[in-house]
């Protein structure tokens, strides 16, 4: 059975009609027969798309008799029709069974439950939620935000760490490259679930108690790490604070203008303008000045130790820190391999040529090797970022409140509605994954090498 090529066939047949047969020198008497043939197939051709085959011999072989089954367009139409029926039947069968079973088991369906109130509390949430008043939809939102929060931070962390370890793998220093290799081999050859549990049990039970928390902010009591999580001061904006925010935005625009102006200046007179110092100065002075002028309306809700626990401020639970750590370390190992492969894929001649014109090795890396390596690094990086989001669902093993553990486990357990909950969770993951891959594919096309 071969893949026919309907549009060529029809185009070819039309050519036959006007007598110009390019290949087999057909006698003109065939003419009328072919035109009849063409009209007969117009409905079927419409159903097929423009498939391509280079089986030229099948096309130019004149059709002695009207052979229904061996004509590939009929056949391809039949195949699609059969598959459509089969898939349709299976879907119908499953749906009918599911609805029947749901009734028999007296399990309730429909999305109504999203508005009913959820009874349980959540220990880590971005939006306001009071148990008893908050609805299941709030729970779904909290779960999604928590998943995105941990995945986002993990993606940033693993990309930076992965880049550093990838470069370390290539470093001339034998010991550090071998150390990086052992780190990568250990992380890649043990299941990620074991790592998540290890980080949770191993590291976070060694953290100090609340009383003697580690003060990461050098005495300013703003960042406190203990085995109940990371407590930090949360800002309480006063009334005139929005002026400072506006000033900050203006400063950021100023930085971009400055960068553009300095590049132009370097083109003219060659001496590069110290953009870094100037822009950071701008960013500090402008908003700082406005903030002081408006009587420093911002005060901080410092977490203070009252009784057993820190009150006030914003705290990240240990489960979150463990999951973030595990995801970052695991994905960084995979990304390091991609970085190494990407850099090695850049032809050695490129760095030779750059060195030959007198460039320092560090500048060669930045201007020549890494930009070209990015082309080989970006596509696998897309799938890695999606994997980070997928692996964040392992939070269920250590009790961090992400969408799978909050919605798919606790809510399913309390309220039932299995079909709806599973569908919503899958929809969440699919939309996020597809958006990440669409964004990165767009970026990937833009930096593609211009080839002949």
């Amino acid at each position: 059975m071969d893949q026919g090529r309907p549009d060529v066939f029809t185009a070819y047949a039309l050519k036959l009609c006007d007598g110009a047969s390019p290949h087999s020198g057909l006698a003109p008497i065939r003419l009328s027969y072919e035109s009849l043939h063409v009209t007969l197939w117009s409905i079927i051709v419409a159903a097929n798309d423009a498939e391509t085959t280079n089986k030229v011999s099948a096309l130019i072989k004149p059709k002695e008799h009207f052979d229904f089954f061996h004509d590939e367009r009929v056949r391809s139409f039949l195949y699609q029709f059969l598959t459509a029926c089969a898939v349709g039947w299976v879907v119908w069968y499953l749906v009918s069974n599911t609805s029947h079973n749901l009734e028999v088991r007296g399990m309730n369906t429909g999305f109504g439950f999203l508005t009913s109130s959820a009874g349980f509390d959540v220990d880590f949430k971005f939006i306001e939620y009071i148990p008893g008043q908050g609805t299941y939809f709030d729970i779904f939102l909290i779960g999604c935000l928590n998943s995105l929060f941990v995945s986002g931070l993990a993606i940033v962390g693993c990309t930076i760490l992965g880049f550093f370890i990838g470069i370390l793998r290539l470093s001339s220093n034998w010991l550090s490259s071998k150390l990086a290799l052992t780190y990568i081999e250990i992380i890649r050859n043990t299941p990620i679930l074991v790592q998540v549990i290890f980080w949770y049990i191993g590291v976070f039970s060694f953290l100090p108690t609340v009383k003697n928390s580690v003060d990461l902010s050098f005495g300013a009591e703003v960042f406190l790490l203990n085995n109940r999580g990371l407590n930090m001061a949360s800002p309480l904006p006063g009334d005139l604070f929005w002026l400072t925010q506006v000033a900050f935005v203006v400063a950021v625009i100023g930085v971009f203008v400055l960068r553009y102006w300095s590049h132009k200046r370097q083109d003219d007179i060659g001496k590069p303008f110290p953009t870094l110092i100037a822009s950071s100065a701008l960013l500090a002075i402008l908003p700082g000045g406005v903030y002081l002028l408006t009587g420093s309306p911002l005060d901080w809700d410092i977490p203070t130790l009252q009784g057993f626990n820190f009150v006030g401020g914003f705290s990240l639970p240990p489960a979150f820190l463990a999951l973030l750590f595990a995801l970052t370390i695991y994905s960084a190992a995979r990304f390091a391999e991609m970085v190494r492969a990407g850099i090695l894929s850049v032809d050695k001649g490129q760095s030779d040529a750059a060195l030959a014109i007198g460039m320092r090795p560090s500048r060669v890396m930045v201007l020549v090797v890494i930009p070209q390596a990015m082309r080989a690094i970006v596509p696998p990086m897309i799938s890695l970022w999606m994997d980070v989001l997928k692996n964040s669902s392992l939070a269920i093993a250590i009790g961090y409140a992400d969408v799978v553990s909050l919605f798919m486990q606790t809510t399913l357990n309390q309220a039932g509605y299995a079909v709806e909950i599973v569908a919503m969770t899958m929809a969440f993951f699919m939309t996020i994954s597809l958006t990440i891959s669409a964004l990165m594919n767009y970026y990937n096309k833009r930096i593609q090498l211009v080839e002949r």
Partner: protein
Amino acid sequence: MAIVTKQPTPPRPAPLSESSVIGWVRINLFNSWMNTGLTLASLYIVYVAVSGLGVWGFSDAVWVAKDRRECFAISVDGACWAGVVSWIDNIFYGRYPRAELWRVNLGGVLLIVWMAPLWLPRVKAKIFIGLSAVFIYPFLAGYLFTGGDKGIFMQTMVTVAMVCVAGNTLHAMIGVISGRSLPEFLIGFLRMKEASEKNQRNMLLGILSLTVIAAYILQMNWSLETVSWTKWGGMFLTLVISGIGIASALPGGIILALGRRSKLTLIRVLSISVIEMFRSLPLITVLFMATTMFPLFMPEGFVLNKLVQVIIAVCLFYACYMAETVRGGLQAIAPGQQEAAHTIGFGYWKTMGLVVMPQALRVMIPNIVGTFIQLLKDTTLVSIIGLYDILGMLRAISQDTPWRGLYREPLLFGAIVFFIVCFIMSKYSRHLEVKLSTGHKTGNE
């Protein structure tokens, strides 16, 4: 005037600094201040890791004890490996009746014997051995593990499997010794070399049917005690799930990959949507979906046990992973191959079956091994939904009354077991990549 040197100067050995240790250390470790910093940092990390883990894990570890209280008595802050040692059977075989463990070991040995010829030199018909291992071995292994009474179909398949494994091993031995295949050997042995093609074939068929009948009679009275799937567990269950997963993920992946490349719009759209859907979902949600939704999909009274639900979910999930590997493999094959096959009159399926797919498979083997490692690691997720695979067993140790609260050592033991297995396989897949000199970068890693 020409400057001519008459004799070529003799080659001298490389100067000392190039090959001496001090020279090497100086060049590689301390040649710039940045490198010195890196070296010192690395040395510090290695020291901390070795001293910390080494002391806890070995020097003051307790290897034999009755229960945790005794472990504390012997050494409070050392590792208590005794719990893991006493639970070894559970960890590797789950709750499989201890009297019947020989059946699991036999199943493993049979698989190794069956697959061994693939690596032996000068053995012919490796494709048949490979295919029979994937399609016929599961029936023999299935009966070995589950036991119970055998229906007619099961008896025939077990017979075929027995004949197959005997034939394969014989064929492999002959191949290694004399480089000939089994049929050639038989013909030569029975001095039928000059006989006509027809009765050579009859003779071979005769021998074959004789062995089949003998095997059938042999396995008639051979019945094993039933062991229900709920007793399977530990590493054995992990290997069963990942074995079946990889065996069915390959054909599934090939079908989906072909579907994705096919010219029929509907099939292409369907395969792409299935692949993209499963690739964007975490395995844990697919497992939850399987355990909660599959029972709802079943008609009234038709009960699908949990192990099958998990296996179906894992197969579907990994078929889509495999589809990407296969697609990478197909893209690595030059389009010229397909055109060449078309020119000699091959249809779509013949081209795929006989020309493109064999080459693509050869290119994909390293990635298939890579995917298998990923699958083996991901199978631990079934412990979250209640199956007692190796990780489930390791986490159950801390519940057993004598070993209450012992959870760090089992977890570390599990990590070490997985590291050994996966490290060997990843080294093997890199070796394959070099041996098959597959220049094509399929980049599925």
